[in-house]
């Protein structure tokens, strides 16, 4: 009997294993996970799970079907057992990039989040090293737990990732949430578990969280080219693309929840220039935004604006879609200037308008088909 081995236990691994069954593969399918948990979603780790609002169990995903062997708690390096395969799926994802070593507090796995969630109870302040999506989410969660939160990085928050306009919007929301932001262009140094040197000054906090990016989990691979091997998930970008493999189609989608903003992005980042605003209200931080690139492509961003993801994708792909007709183009600022986003002036923002389809039945939390 043919056997496909999927190495990894997260969303990419489970989806690949399950897709083999959906597509009709009737050989043996085995998924091997290093972690002790069943598959889970990483999305709530830096938010609800870290805040202690959501249980660990709430992050768990449904188990694969019974015709898939799912094994947890296995070391992905040589553990003395050879596992033969006819087809191999590399889906080991990425791990946290650590600045000082294994004792760094990070938010990558469910165990990391549980460990860290136990800390804020006795803490009053936190320093977050890294101001990307994860760092800003963690800082927002710390603020929600009433900790003083300072984010430190070598570059301004989210700037390289998002581009200046959306970064400014997110930073304004972060500052309103009381997150302190320090940029240390000359470098920073972690002195011990409570102190960070940042330029001339030394900052102290009860907890230091490292959110400095991630590294692919490929240490266990003894070679990087082999017949019958494919990859899925975050690990893909670190592996060579085989000559006989079909072209890889990247589907750029991003989402982050931080400082009261829920941001969904469809399209390539970063975004330069100022966007169109097909719907919503930028000052109220609830808007649909679209950037058109010179190459004819577009990117769409929903900021705390309810819009089905598939519609956001269509908008990002430049397909005209039936979004509300009122389109305003922001006139402040030119391309590459500082963003045209103006800080919130009104203390009582207008309630966000929700976009709903015209024939949509009344909303209900559950609709059941018998």
């Amino acid at each position, binding site marked *: 009997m043919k056997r496909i081995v999927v190495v990894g236990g997260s*969303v990419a691994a*489970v*989806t690949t294993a*399950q897709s083999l*069954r*959906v597509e009709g593969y009737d050989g043996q399918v085995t998924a091997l996970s290093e972690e002790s948990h069943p598959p889970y*979603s990483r999305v709530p780790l830096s938010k609800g799970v870290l805040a202690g609002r959501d249980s660990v169990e709430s992050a768990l*995903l*449904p188990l*694969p*079907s019974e015709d898939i062997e799912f094994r947890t708690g296995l070391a992905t390096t040589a553990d003395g057992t050879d596992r033969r395969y006819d087809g191999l799926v590399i889906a080991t994802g990425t791990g946290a990039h650590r600045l000082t070593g294994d004792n760094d507090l990070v938010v990558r796995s469910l165990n990391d989040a549980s460990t860290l969630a136990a800390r804020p109870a006795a803490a009053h302040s936190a320093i977050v090293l890294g101001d990307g999506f994860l760092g800003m989410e963690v800082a927002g969660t710390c603020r929600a737990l009433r900790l003083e939160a300072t984010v430190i990085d070598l570059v301004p928050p989210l700037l390289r990732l998002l581009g200046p306009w959306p970064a400014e919007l997110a930073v304004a929301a972060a500052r309103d949430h009381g997150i302190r932001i320090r940029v240390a262009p000359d470098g920073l140094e972690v002195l011990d578990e409570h102190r960070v040197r940042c330029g001339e000054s030394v900052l102290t906090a009860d907890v230091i969280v490292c959110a400095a990016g991630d590294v692919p989990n490929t240490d266990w691979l003894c070679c990087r080219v082999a017949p019958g091997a494919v990859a899925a998930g975050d690990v893909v970008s670190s592996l060579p693309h085989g000559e006989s493999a079909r072209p890889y189609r990247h589907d750029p989608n991003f989402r982050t929840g931080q400082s009261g903003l829920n941001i*969904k992005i469809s399209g390539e980042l970063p975004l330069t220039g100022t966007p169109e605003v097909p719907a919503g209200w930028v000052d109220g931080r609830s808007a649909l935004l679209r950037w058109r690139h010179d190459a004819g492509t577009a990117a769409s961003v929903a900021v705390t604006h309810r*819009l*089905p*993801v*598939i*519609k956001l994708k269509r908008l990002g792909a430049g397909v005209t879609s*039936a979004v509300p007709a009122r389109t305003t183009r922001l006139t402040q600022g030119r391309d590459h200037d500082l963003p045209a986003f103006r800080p919130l002036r009104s203390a009582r923002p207008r309630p966000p308008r929700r976009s*709903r*389809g*015209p024939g*949509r039945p009344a*909303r*209900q*939390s*559950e*609709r*059941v*088909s*018998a």
Partner: protein
Amino acid sequence: MTRIVVDFDRCEGHGLCEQTAPEVFRLNDEGELHLRRDQVDTEHEGLVAAAVRVCPVAALKVQP
């Protein structure tokens, strides 16, 4: 007979259920999810189970 329970507060219109089981799930032009059939027969049970698993926001459930 299997019932599909959709949590519309969670559903964000990713459309993966429709990709997996187009005979059962459909997203309209507005990106809103509709169920094509009221009852899930044995023939579609496997596909529906796969669609439930693939939902990135866990908005779908199957109840016996």
